[in-house]
């Protein structure tokens, strides 16, 4: 499991789904139409979602623990 993970600023997320479409691991869902959620188990921290996000509210950070 990689250490770097995508983190969504849920308050600013517009739930458009661009991140979901580019995620190579299908680690992103928008279950309630409010904001994106990242499956930390699946995320490999590639950063494609962060690049794609039109609101630029996804960051890739080194996960603690």
């Amino acid at each position: 499991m990689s250490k770097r993970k995508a983190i969504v600023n849920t308050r600013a997320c517009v739930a458009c789904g661009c991140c979901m479409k580019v995620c190579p691991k299908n680690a992103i869902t928008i279950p309630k139409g409010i904001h994106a959620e990242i499956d930390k188990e699946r995320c490999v921290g590639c950063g494609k979602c962060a690049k794609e996000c039109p609101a630029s509210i996804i960051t890739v950070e080194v996960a603690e623990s």
Partner: protein
Amino acid sequence: MKQKKKWYDYLWIASLTYLILGFFNILFAWLGLLCFFIPLLIAVIKGNKAYCNKYCGRGQLFSLAGGRFGLSRKKDVPGWMKSPYFRYGFLIFFFTMFFQMLWNTYLVFAGTKNLGTAVTLLWTFRLPWHWAYHGTFFSDGVAQFAFGFYSVMLTSTVLGFVTMLLFKPRSWCVYCPMGTMTQLICKAKHKAASRKS
């Protein structure tokens, strides 16, 4: 690993066709109501934004033009553009203009106003569009709505295209009134659901 394309990944063709049809016969503009009702129905019934997430052809068009064809600068949108003030403000503005268009349509239906065969771009510029009008079997109001609705669709496409060029390909999604509205519906729906349980 590339994701396998699904049937709905080609809906950009429908969006593009829609825009082109409006140049030939304005009455096709009525089809655009699908882009209004489908996202709303999905949000109200299913409580999600599957329309934005999967089916929105316009979003796909922007991501193709800005991504694959490299027409986008791919810069971050300015902070104010993603602020709730702007997003909700734009939603209100958009709907005010929308209702004004509906009122205009009503006046033509009622016979107090004559049909105007123009497409209004960015709520300001009246473009002559008479070549796409070949009469209607119904009231002139039917055609007036088509002109009005096509104006809304063309205006939002132009705005979306400009922000696609300047910022990220799908910048339009940040302030898209339909997106903001369906997100609000989802918020309200899930809040009500969590209160019940």
